[in-house]
């Protein structure tokens, strides 16, 4: 599994496995249903739940493998709207809007999240990567950031007022108001951030760099940040995503190499390494439970 989300309206967890969306019981973690989004698609997919429409949205891209399908077009790079029953899948047509079909190598949609009102997607386009805001109920209501980074991101952060985007390779981050219009500001952080998260408990943004650094952004402008060390908890810690769960007030950092999850208390700035997982790439939370999303034969494992 590459990504997962919790759907509060039916209590289910939905995750992406190859070109499929799988539905899991939010209490037991058992798989209940699955549905193929498109084919042929080889790329991993990202997923979010959008309460305004009570639907799932799946972002698809294509690996270079997909270059082979004559006549060298890639019709399925898009964001797909999927009903909760997993019976229908409709492309929003963003690929045409973006001009991604046909385009070479690894263009497509690599991350998606919902603010409750809008969807935000990371676009691997040409010549660069950027963020697009979309109202799935009105595709004309859209906006984009300027080109802002040279590498794909794992996760951006959405607060009640801002979108904060890591800039891997450029050592910094950019932040925007939720409309993505007019306001474009950047801060230099001498670390290659790949994933950002908003902590509603203290109103701060946190970032991960795929190694033992956890970056707490104390002030966006002028930038002030604190580097927190995960290495003392797990020497091989390499989280590339980070999730905040209001249920515990903790940050959750999946560590693929160590087969574990670091649970970080932002109040005490201390953490605990939980082992026993298999290649965890993400975390997902229901109202009462936390789950590791595993890029492994067993997709979900509860974090206890």
């Amino acid at each position: 599994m590459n990504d997962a989300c919790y759907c509060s309206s039916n209590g289910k967890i939905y995750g992406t496995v190859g070109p499929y969306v799988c539905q899991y019981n939010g209490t037991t973690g058992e798989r209940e249903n699955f549905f193929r989004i498109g084919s042929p698609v080889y790329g991993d997919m990202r997923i979010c739940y959008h309460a305004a429409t009570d639907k799932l949205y799946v972002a698809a891209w294509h690996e270079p493998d997909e270059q082979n399908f004559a006549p060298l077009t890639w019709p399925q790079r898009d964001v797909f709207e999927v009903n909760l029953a997993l019976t229908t899948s409709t492309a929003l047509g963003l690929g045409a809007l973006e001009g991604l079909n046909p385009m070479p190598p690894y263009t497509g949609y690599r991350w998606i999240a919902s603010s409750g009102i809008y969807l935000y997607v990371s676009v691997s386009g040409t010549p660069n990567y950027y963020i697009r805001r979309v109202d799935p109920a009105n595709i004309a209501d859209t906006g984009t950031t300027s080109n802002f980074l040279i590498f794909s991101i794992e996760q951006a952060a959405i607060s009640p007022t801002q979108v904060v985007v890591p800039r891997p390779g450029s050592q910094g981050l950019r932040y925007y108001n939720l409309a993505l219009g007019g306001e474009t500001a950047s801060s230099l952080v001498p670390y290659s951030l790949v994933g950002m998260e908003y902590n509603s408990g203290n109103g701060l943004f946190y970032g991960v760099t795929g190694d033992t650094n956890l970056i707490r952004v104390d002030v966006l402008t002028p930038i002030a940040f604190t580097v927190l060390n995960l290495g003392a908890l797990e020497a091989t810690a390499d989280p590339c995503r980070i999730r905040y769960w209001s249920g515990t007030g903790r940050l959750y950092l999946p560590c693929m190499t160590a087969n574990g999850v670091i649970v970080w208390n932002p109040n005490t700035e201390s953490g605990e390494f939980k082992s026993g997982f298999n290649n965890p790439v993400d975390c997902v939370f229901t109202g009462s439970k936390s789950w590791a999303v595993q890029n492994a034969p067993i997709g979900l494992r509860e974090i206890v």
Partner: protein
Amino acid sequence: MPCFKSFVFSAATLGEYALFDAVYVASVDKIFATSGVHVVKFNATTGAVESSVRISSPVNGQARLCYHAATGLLYATIWNEPNLQYFSLTHPNRDVYPINPTTMVVGTRLNIASTTVVDDDFVNGSFFGPRWIASSGNYLYIQWADNANGYVTLRVNPSNLADRSTNAYFTDQFLWEHGALTPTEIMVPDPDYPGVSFAPIGYDLDAEWNTCDTFPLYFPVACEYVSFDGLVYATDGAGNLLRLDNPGASAYTVFDMTAVQSGADPCRLRWNVYDGQIYMPCMTNNSFILWDPNTVTGVVKTGFANPVDVIFTGTKVWAVQNSPAEPLKEIT
């Protein structure tokens, strides 16, 4: 180097497998397949999952797999998706990894990028790394997406890395799904050329790759050797099956698979020496086309879930499915 734990499952264990490549190993009578960065072992009679092992981490890319009889080991290629561009901008795990098919223990990586002519792909971005692997019995053949040169075909002896092709062959700017190994030649598709290039199986010099067939209207993505007629066949992912009638003379015959089943889009093809059929998985149609090269006719087998490949054990034929439905499904 890390040694990853092998996970053992009961036969009833459900899992989220999305298989990408597979191989049958007769010496242990097991099927092995890649699912993400894991290699999974299956019972060849029942298709049940027996165990799995993670090859390397952190890696988000898919893996390809082959069995090399000379060493009695599986070899898995790992590459990295652009997702992996972030890890301090290094990509240390793009390589070829041996796996013991009995113990499922991952051995020491071959460190191909440091020992061959490919560019230093450990520190470069994007989608570089090994993307296909096959064994001739004596050598491994690897397709490597190389930063500096495009796509490279390498010949390597895993027991003696100094015994390898000293000049890589740079195909074109697109990946292919698989090449063909005949008793005397390696033949690889050039999807962008478009055509098929070939060289003696023990090739060493660039010049040996100067021969190619061109298919002006077709973009082959996979080649397969068919011992029935001694010819190589290719698919283009768009419903065309190409038979190379006279290699070197660009003489070929095109068979329309969409006439067998509308919408057919096989991107791999496999020759089953046991029943004399060419098997072509069609992802979009959830089907297989079985093509008889003797009668030049085909039939359709339906009821599969996103099949990407096929495995022959001698007594059974298994669909390799990129789907959580069930990883292997018997074709009857």
